[in-house]
């Protein structure tokens, strides 16, 4: 056995043992990961296995608890630079970049897109000049493209996605190819529905073949939204039920919530206001439990739109007041409060169209934080 071969063998075994040992520690950390962020990292925890186990935990808790996921990922980024020279630089870089990517995902889930991009910059920096890590760079590119898509920087997202997808194709990393197709669909979704539908179908097929249930469910969920937007309500509800079933199996509560929100939103758009109330109220409650105040508020405004369409003014007004209190408590943009105040002050004169206008404004405000709210009748 050559020296290099022996090193490969030693590292393969020790990493497996380290991850195994770290899982027990991470299980304890999961109780309150933020409590460990400002403490010195014990020497025994400064292992690659620990960073990997924290990264896995951050990934696995992302849906259920994005805040906890952020703490776990931050802890991983704190340990990664402390890894000693017993690990080759290529492995240290791979591990470090992965920790930053998990942190970026947690930031993105919590709506902190600029922070997510900065975390991805850190990931790119540690991968710089590690020629063997092309797939790791593509993974970071895919995470960045996803973030840029969320920020509506579609051209930038599309360019990055194309290069990442080519790398995954060459590596025959089929699960990641499916994730690229899903994102391609999401990028095309608004302006090119036909391309989006094809991409979602390719994503569902590729993810099914690769056994990636999360991507299968996401593809169905997005197909449902496309159907709803095209007025195919029956098909939309069928696709959403398929998506929901898979997400429930995965215990992906954030995604169930988004899917449920999408069902409600589709029903509102289809004019089925009574049927929309249940899913929208459920989505709002779950977002609140997950600490996702903005999403909870938006689902609430859609719910308000349904109430207003049904002329249930008291419920609508009570709801808007509650959303205002939540936004104030979370320290969200004052401009959002101004838009909500406008809706509340309309009282019994408020219309479903005005609620829709406020919801659209709040969506835009997330990417254009200095945008002023000007009601349609004042423009």
């Amino acid at each position: 056995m050559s020296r290099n071969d022996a090193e490969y063998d030693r590292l393969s075994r020790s990493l497996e043992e380290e991850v195994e040992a770290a899982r027990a520690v991470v299980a304890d950390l999961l109780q309150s990961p933020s409590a460990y962020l400002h403490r010195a990292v014990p020497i025994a925890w400064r292992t690659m296995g620990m960073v990997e186990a924290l990264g896995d935990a951050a990934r696995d808790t992302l849906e259920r608890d994005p805040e906890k996921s952020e703490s776990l990922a931050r802890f991983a980024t704190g340990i990664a630079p402390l890894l000693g020279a017993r690990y080759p630089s290529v492995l240290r870089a791979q591990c470090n970049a992965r920790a930053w990517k998990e942190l970026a995902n947690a930031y993105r889930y919590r709506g902190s897109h600029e922070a997510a991009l900065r975390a991805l910059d850190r990931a790119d920096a540690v991968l710089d000049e590690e020629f063997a890590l092309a797939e790791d760079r593509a993974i970071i590119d895919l995470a960045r493209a996803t973030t840029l898509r969320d920020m509506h920087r579609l051209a930038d997202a599309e360019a990055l996605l194309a290069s990442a997808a080519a790398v995954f194709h060459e590596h025959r990393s089929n699960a990641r190819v499916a994730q690229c197709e899903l994102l391609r669909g999401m990028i095309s979704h608004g302006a090119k529905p036909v391309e989006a539908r094809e991409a979602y179908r390719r994503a569902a097929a590729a993810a099914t073949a690769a056994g990636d249930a999360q991507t299968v469910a996401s593809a169905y969920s997005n197909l449902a939204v496309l159907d709803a937007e095209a007025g195919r309500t029956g098909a939309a509800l069928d696709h959403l039920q398929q998506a929901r079933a898979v997400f429930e199996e995965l215990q992906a509560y954030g995604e169930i919530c988004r899917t449920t929100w999408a069902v409600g939103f589709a029903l509102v758009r289809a004019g089925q206001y009574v049927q929309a109330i249940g899913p929208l109220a459920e989505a709002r409650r779950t977002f609140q439990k997950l600490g996702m105040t903005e999403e909870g508020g938006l689902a609430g405004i859609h719910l308000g739109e349904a109430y207003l369409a049904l002329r249930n003014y008291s419920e609508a007004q009570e709801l808007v007041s509650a959303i205002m209190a939540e936004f104030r408590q979370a320290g969200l943009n004052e401009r959002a409060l101004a838009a909500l105040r406008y809706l509340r002050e309309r009282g019994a004169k408020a219309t479903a169209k005005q609620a829709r206008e406020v919801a659209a404004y709040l969506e835009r405000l997330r990417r254009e934080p200095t945008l002023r709210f000007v009601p349609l009748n004042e423009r």
Partner: protein
Amino acid sequence: MSLYEEHFEALVAIGRGFGIGRRDAETLAHAVLLSSIRRLDDAEDPAEWLRAAMRYASSGYVAYRKTVQRQERV
């Protein structure tokens, strides 16, 4: 035969195909194999994954060398 032994020479040959010297090609092949430790479990076809990783590693290295040489000339 271990996975390392099975693939090492084939990966070095890919690097040599990019015009890289034997020693540097061996260093790259070693790095690719190490990087695969945490990846091959997810790979559809481990051999193809390794070959693709080596092609990217080699082209990245060649591009880097060219940039360095250009900078040295300047």
